[in-house]
């Protein structure tokens, strides 16, 4: 547990215990997601909490505030820590207490968030990278801090420092899309949307001014931009003009609605009689996305009334977790010669004739090289720089909440 107090009134540590018992009541999975909303009221404080990689970030306030300011700030803290330590877990934080304190000190003062942009923070507080560690060993103790103040803090481009230099000038963009689809029990696709992000990783020197064009920007329903994107240009010409931050950043996120179909179909059939449910789940490709669909996993979370399961598949592996009652069918890729099929039966508790609560099947998959919405990057142009830029684009589609109800 690490605390940082900003206000005159000390917050007692016991609040964490209170929160913990609320979020993880005894008898529930201690490592599961918290069972309370992100914003709750305790008898003494109003608490805002987020959980990232098993680390809980908790903010307490006594007065009215903007809840999203609190949540966003905690998210940024988590992001910044992850960026600094190359990950986020208890041990990393324990190893770097001092650094965490320093960061928090610069990120907030007196309850008001200040600098949260990683590239600026890095100028004030050096990350614990390999180079600086080696340096301090070799030179015998030069400070790992830069003692100069960040130049960008007062420049017109607050997300980018002046005088950045890289030997290889390169910039990469990842189009990451996530499918959100629900198929109802009659087999209709009731909802299908794609949320996408354009993630950038920039290693460019100087102050490059970039223009990113899409071939088909009109399919996007709604967008959110990193502050570096000039909104007027998007409004007028539907392209992104920006001076990128250095390192990794999320350039934009978008939503594409009204997709007609999912690349995969999953057809479940359940029939009950005399305490036994016969199960038959078929999986196949509905529309070929052009690339292989990988990492296909089908999860069937059975209700607690199910006692045992005898399920087999003609392809992939099937696991039934008897404590959570989740049946996980790992398919991987769909073979060319047959369509994967899960068959078998599950048994219900004694006394139950048929299934009252039907499970919702969750399907996960991944397609490399394709953005399912069809969004394509056309070209990247650059200005204000004299060197050649190596550019790279990738796309990936993931499904994390593709639901099939039965």
């Amino acid at each position, binding site marked *: 547990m690490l605390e940082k107090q900003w206000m005159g009134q000390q917050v007692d540590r016991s609040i964490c215990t209170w929160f913990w018992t609320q979020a993880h009541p005894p008898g529930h999975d201690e490592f599961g997601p918290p069972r309370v909303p992100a914003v709750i009221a305790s008898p*003494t404080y109003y608490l805002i909490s987020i959980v990232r990689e098993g680390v809980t970030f908790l903010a307490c306030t006594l007065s*009215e505030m903007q809840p999203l*300011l609190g949540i966003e700030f905690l998210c940024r803290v988590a992001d910044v820590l992850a960026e600094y330590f190359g990950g986020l877990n208890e041990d990393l934080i324990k190893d770097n207490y001092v650094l965490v304190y320093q960061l928090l000190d610069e990120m907030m003062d007196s309850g008001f968030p200040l600098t949260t942009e990683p590239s600026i923070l890095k100028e004030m507080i050096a990350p614990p990278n390999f180079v600086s560690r080696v340096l301090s060993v070799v030179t015998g103790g030069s400070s790992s801090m830069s003692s100069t103040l960040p130049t960008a803090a007062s420049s017109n481009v607050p997300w980018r420092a002046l005088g950045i230099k890289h030997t290889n000038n390169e910039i990469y963009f990842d189009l990451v899309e996530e499918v959100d689809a629900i198929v109802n029990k009659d087999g209709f696709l009731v909802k299908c949307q794609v949320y996408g992000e354009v993630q950038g990783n920039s290693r460019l020197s100087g102050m490059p001014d970039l223009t990113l064009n899409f071939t088909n920007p009109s399919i996007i329903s709604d967008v959110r931009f990193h502050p570096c994107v000039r909104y007027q240009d998007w409004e007028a010409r539907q392209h992104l003009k920006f001076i990128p931050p250095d390192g990794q950043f999320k350039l934009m996120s978008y*939503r594409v609605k009204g997709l007609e179909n999912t690349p995969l179909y999953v057809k479940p059939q359940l029939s009950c009689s005399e305490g036994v449910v016969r199960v038959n789940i078929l999986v196949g490709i509905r529309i070929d996305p052009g690339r292989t669909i990988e990492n296909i996993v089908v999860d069937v979370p059975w209700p607690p009334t199910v006692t045992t399961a005898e399920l087999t598949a003609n392809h992939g592996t099937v696991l039934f977790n008897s404590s959570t009652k989740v049946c996980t069918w790992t398919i991987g890729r769909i073979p060319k010669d047959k369509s994967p099929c899960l068959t078998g039966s599950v048994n219900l508790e004694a006394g139950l004739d048929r299934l009252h609560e039907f499970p919702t099947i969750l399907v996960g998959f991944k397609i490399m090289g394709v953005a399912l919405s069809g969004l394509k990057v056309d070209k990247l142009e650059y200005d204000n720089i004299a060197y050649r830029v190596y550019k790279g684009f990738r796309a990936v589609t993931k499904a994390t909440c593709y639901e099939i109800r039965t």
Partner: protein
Amino acid sequence: MNADNRKGELAELKGQLRQLAGSRAPGVEDLKRELYKKVISYLTVGIDVSSLFSEMVMCSATSDLVLKKMCYLYVGNYARGYPELALLTINFLQKDCQDDDPMIRGLALRSLCSLRVKNLVEYLVGPLQRGLKDSNGYVRSVAAIGVLKLYHIAPSSCTDNDFPVTLKALLLHDSDPQVVANCLCSLLEILSIEGNVSEAALREKESLLHRNVILSLLNRFKEFSEWAQCLVLEVVSKYVPEDAQETHDMMDVLDDRLQHANSAVVLATIKVFLHLTMSMADVHQKVYERIKAPLLTLVSSGSAEQSYAVLSHLHLLVMRAPMLFASDYKHFYCRYSDPSYVKKLKLEMLTAVANESNTYEIVTELSEYAANVDVAIARESIRAVGKIALQQYDVNAIVDRLLQFLEMEKDYVTAETLVLVKDLLRKYPQWSHDCIAVVGNVSSKSVTEPKAKAALVWMLGEYAYDMSDAPYVLEGFVQSWAEEDFAEVRLELLTAVAKCFFKRPPETVQILGAALSFGFADANQDVHDRALLYYRLLQHSVEVAERVINPPKQAVSVFAGDQSSEIKDRIFDEFNSLAVVYRQPSYMFLDKDQRSPFAFSEDTGSSIIGPQSPGREDLPSDIDARDNDLLLSAHEKEDSRAVSNGSHGYSSSKFHTLQEFTDSAFAPRSPSPTQPIRNARATPLPPAAVSSTAASPLLAVDDLLGLGPSASAEPFPPLKLNPKPVLDPASFKRKWGQLTVALTLEYTFPAQAMVGLTGPQPLVRHMQTNSVQCMASGNAPLKFFFFAQLADAPANTGFFLVELVVTTSSGLASAKIKADDSSLAPAFADSLQSALSKFGSL
């Protein structure tokens, strides 16, 4: 690590630190750093390392930045507990405040201000004054926040040194946006606390909302960091622009903030937009259209925590203007993985946005949740189907669902369904045929929950004609009287048996006897009394008993809402705050007095720092208004558990209820004494033009006390209207031509109601639920011809005709009322007005 061990280790650390203190040997900084790190990590895990204080301070003479920072951290942590020792640190901190490196100046100043030791305040003022004039922006911004910290420790030394004035000057003229933002932050907090005691500070705070300040902030808006933008937007949302043009200009400047990656900025911008346009009904509606997409994206693409908080805000907007979100209902479909508090919000939104075109899909979706593993959500979704059924007209679809629910043969689903059917029947008695057919198949044995049982029993009594086996089912219930634990069910059973008796005497007479004798012997006073009352009534005359026990029923038009529209408005005013997430206005939860006593882990500081914690709303001038608010809502809360947790602790609420009671009893028509209070509130209430007076106040008292027989000859104060009047267009035209205008009425729709009035249909439907039918309507301008008829008037008489014209830009509605019996026109005008005022706040 046991205690001894730890002591040993601390002593060792102490020794090592002492050795290093004076040393100038090369590499000593590294050793120091290692030791400091150890100390800090002890401190973090909660080990008391305060005994090292003097050694730590001694070692602090260093040029190493990291060491300095660690030392500042250590000192900041223990200074409050050890003020004498803290004095030791002042010297080196003050020295550092004049270092050449601005970073060190800033850090030292911040640490100095964070010591929070009262008797060291004198050492603070000088460095702060210098800091505010520093050439470096970083130092100035630290100093600006430092002023706030100084204020919390010693308010007088802050104000005496004219710090607020300096801050204000910096706010307007500093070149560094972060300095400006920090000044704004400090000033707001200082002035709102100071405002509690000083008029001047209050005026000063008002002056922050002056046009010049707002414009200077907006002009350099894009320079601010995202967090500063949130702060500025919060201030801007309180500003009232001079004219419509200025509003538009401001919105133009801020428009792209809606696309910002930071959800806090988006929400703050939305708040500004909503507040700027409160008085411009047509623009307000466009704002809803504009903010819809960003909000929906935030909900579905952000992290789970953001999504929940945004969803709470979206929920508020959906409840205010459900029609605008009608086509987005799919966004409110629950995901399997959503936590149940999110599902609950979504269910409520799905219920609210249902209209003719999407009811089928929504009800289908809700029915799927009824099979959900989460029982609470399954119940909620059945209730949601019920609420939709009460709003809509698609009987067949709903009845199909009901059948489906009952077929699931799950106790709680059956129970919820029965309650739902009962409510449906109370509102739409005309559906009895379909509904009873559904309920008829329910086996009374499978119903165990008291609410469901009471509902079933009520239906058996009410529809004894339609359900052939009603008396026999009731008999079964009566026979197991002794096993029935809930008085609620037994009460209902008595009434049902009696009603059944009036309808089918030969079959029921024996059961009635049995039920009454069980009732006499019942331990519950209410049950006993009701049995006795029925018995005496029946003894007196069966006819009179029937008139009392089973009078002809008026279909319920509107069920009591769960949260009053005042409270909702209040929460709306606090958009983008915790209030929205908690769904209570902040005065309900921020008031310390109302909360259970708790121990502050506070020492001497608390008495001084105390006033900092309440929010900005806590100005004294607000408090009266707030009390009134609370009083007003207190009686409303009695109907609604949802909000009741904020109401305890106000003993005067009872008195107010009494006041309200007398108001409504003696002056039900004239503007009641509560009216001025209502208008005095911050919430924009329609300036109602009440233009009629009551029939007879005394009669109203009779009614309230239950003295008047229910079949009273006089009309009830709320005019009883025929729910389904029939009038063909030709007769309407003729009547309109013949009659003269009996009354005119003006009403201004509040902006949030106008949001829903995109076309005539919503109002037409709303008025139908209030027994006012539409004859014709037009869209440009919005114009309606309504008619209504007295409940028990003979055919073709007792009609009221209304012409209603709504000006969309201002929300002004003017009505011309004509009536067959013009003496009733004022009473009707009143019902019309109350019906109009409910529009948009359901």
